[in-house]
């Protein structure tokens, strides 16, 4: 049987597709664009943690202590650390978009530098927030 598209049933022809993400070399602006969307999606569900904490504080001491303990476990801390990074990264990425909205910083090399800055900045700020939280309170 011929593999030619010409012999296939009408209306079932595979339509040509324009080149998509996979054909391009990954650039930092591309990676940060994807990360911006992923962090946004993660933060969406992260609101569940915020509300859980508020509900726990509004319930009673026993339940609050249980939730506090859960957030304080190794897995809990990893999730909260990831949440902090997602929040800061999405914020910096958002500020980058707001700058672009004014039509500045869009030149290729400038855009790449700002993209790197959001990544380095978000990791640095997240680590600083956690160090500050730990040393200010001494409650690791």
């Amino acid at each position: 049987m011929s593999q030619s598209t010409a012999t296939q049933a009408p209306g079932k022809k595979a339509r040509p597709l324009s080149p998509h993400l996979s054909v391009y070399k990954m650039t930092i602006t591309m990676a940060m664009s994807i990360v911006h969307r992923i962090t946004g999606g993660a933060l969406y569900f992260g609101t569940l943690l915020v509300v859980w904490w508020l509900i726990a504080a509004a319930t009673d001491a026993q339940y609050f202590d249980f939730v506090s303990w859960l957030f304080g476990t190794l897995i809990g801390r990893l999730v909260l650390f990831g949440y902090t990074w997602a929040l800061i990264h999405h914020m910096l990425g958002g500020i980058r978009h707001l700058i672009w909205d004014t039509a500045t910083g869009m030149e290729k090399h400038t855009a790449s530098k700002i993209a790197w800055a959001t990544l380095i900045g978000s990791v640095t700020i997240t680590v600083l927030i956690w160090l500050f939280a730990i040393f200010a309170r001494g409650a690791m």
Partner: protein
Amino acid sequence: MRDMTTPLKKVLGYGSAHEGTDHFWKQRVSAIANVPLTLFFVGLVVALNGASYEETRAALANPFVGLLLGLTLFAVLYHMRLGMQSIIEDYLHNEGVKLLALMLNTFFTILIGASALYALIKLTLGA
């Protein structure tokens, strides 16, 4: 090709989706609001790291904290609903699935918002 757009359509600038830049603009306004509000939220959580039940309740019962936290949640939820709407519209191509997801997006946002509001009111009134 002759421009078939009527002068009224041009002035309104709503385009084919009849929304114009509505979504874009709301996304940006809430994004700007989110910057200071989120920084406040991070500061609050850092300050309450390791705090006891009583300390946490006392902090959350403070009118300024409660009000700012309420505003933060409102701006964040507003922003994230718009963002998730874009994700849904980009990736879900089945009309039925898309409509269902868009509805669930609204329901989720309202559920989170109502729960947070309930907790905040309860904490503020000290009940």
